[in-house]
């Protein structure tokens, strides 16, 4: 019953929406540079599956590097901030600023700083975008040791490292994963948008604009579809990791 609802309902909705879209395009004679039909997009996607996959591979690669880098730095930094209060206090305004700043605006200067013929700038844009949610959530996780667990560790005369290992880190895990889940699709989008500002040719972002520039909208949409699927894969993989890692967190 619930399964029916959680799987069938969104699928039905999606199918209905696609059907309505197809119908509207056909019935109203909407031209492809306004909105191509889902069928045309699907056809282009199938026909260009190889090119789309290659492009998605480039963008996904950058997003992955950015994700891993951003997560790693965020976690290390969060641990530092959790132990050394001054690190947290000094970095607080910068973190706040970074969390409200449009990161992609930095893309042009990053290309200049790190080179325009390598993927570094894009990976850094993704990493910066990833850093914020992961850092903020991890720090919160590391800070929210339940008082009773802290007391317990003290009662056991546990060493600092023992307490960190047995209580603080596992307790922070759900928070950390919340951050990573948010960051996952962000990494893809950021890496993709960064391509608009330069760098080696080959990714989804550049492919979309190229297709648009030659008025090949169904192809552009096929790349968009590739981007959606890439984002979805990132999201689902992190979601699966999260589900496995935080199975037993509801009480205690």
């Amino acid at each position, binding site marked *: 019953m619930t399964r029916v609802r959680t799987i069938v309902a969104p699928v039905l909705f999606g199918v209905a929406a696609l059907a309505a879209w197809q119908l509207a395009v056909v019935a109203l004679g909407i031209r492809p540079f306004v909105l191509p039909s889902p069928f045309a997009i699907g056809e282009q996607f199938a026909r260009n599956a190889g090119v789309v996959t290659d492009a998605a591979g480039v963008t996904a690669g950058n997003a992955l590097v950015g994700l891993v880098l951003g997560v790693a730095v965020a976690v290390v930094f969060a641990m530092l901030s959790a132990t050394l209060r001054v690190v947290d206090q000094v*970095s607080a305004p910068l973190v706040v600023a970074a969390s409200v700043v449009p990161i992609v605006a930095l893309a*042009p200067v990053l290309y200049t700083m*790190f080179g325009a013929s390598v993927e570094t700038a894009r990976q850094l844009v993704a990493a910066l975008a990833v850093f914020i949610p992961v850092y903020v959530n991890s720090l919160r996780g590391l800070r929210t040791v339940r008082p009773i667990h802290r007391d317990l560790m003290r009662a056991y005369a546990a060493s600092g490292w023992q307490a960190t290992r047995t209580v603080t880190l596992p307790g922070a895990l759900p928070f950390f994963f919340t951050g990573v889940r948010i960051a996952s699709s962000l990494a893809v989008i950021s890496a993709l948008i960064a391509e608009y500002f330069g760098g080696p040719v080959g990714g989804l972002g550049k492919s979309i604009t190229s297709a648009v520039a030659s008025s090949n909208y169904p192809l552009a949409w096929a790349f968009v579809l590739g981007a959606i699927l890439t984002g979805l894969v990132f999201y689902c993989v992190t979601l699966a990791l999260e589900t496995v890692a935080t199975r037993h967190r509801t009480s205690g």
Partner: protein
Amino acid sequence: MTRLRTLLYGAAGVVLLGVLWETYKALAPAEGVVIGGLTVLPRTSDIAMPHLWDIATRLTEPINGARFALNLWEAVLFAALFTLGVAGVGWLVGVVVGLAIATLMQRFRTAESALLPWVVLSQTVPLIALAPLVRRWGGQLELGAIEWQDWMSVAVIASYLAFFPVSIGALRGFSSPDAAHLDLMRSYGVGWWRTFLRLRVPASVPYLLPALRLAAANAVVGTVVAEVSIGLRGGVGRMIVEFAASASSDPAKQWAPILGAVLVGLVAAGAVALLGLALKPYRRAEVDA
């Protein structure tokens, strides 16, 4: 006392970043730190990392040689205001749409099941791919006396990014009341709508505020990127593109619109924080969302 300390530490952080910038620039080689062909730390040439004082000085100089040229900082300020305005409209639209979707999902469980995955999926669509199309879609609209303007397309894209955190946050907020509270309202024999107004809406405030802040940040990102994409004149996004032409010969100049973008983001977040102050009574059981 503690507030002052926070302020001081924060200021120290900003200063530290500046010192780090200049120290690194002074010490590191012009081509940056390259390991195995990969530049791992940035280049330090004046083009890549202008001196902070050059950036500051540049701000006080005219934007170009035109007859009535504004000083750069004035131009950036106007651009930032413009972007803020468009982002504000996008934010508002996004908030309204996000709340509407959340309300719908809260009201009908089937709607939640049917919509929620798509709401999540929507954010994997590269918005920039939509920018020229949104402009075109807008152009096709007949709005009576009102003509579709390019800034509206930008606002639409901003709202597309802004609605997401609001719909998720609001849905969580609307679902946050305890079962006991819901039972209570039922025991009073009041229907869904009044339960929604009296219980779910106020209970959602602590969830809504962080969502609104995220939405503000997203709206700014969307506005800046869409300005680039559509070429909308007046905002910092467009300024970033335009100033690129001087990026080599006048490297300090292009940092000005970036600072402008930072400013817009901070002001937007500040505005939401003010809203949070106004809603203080509803935040007594503050949660971290």
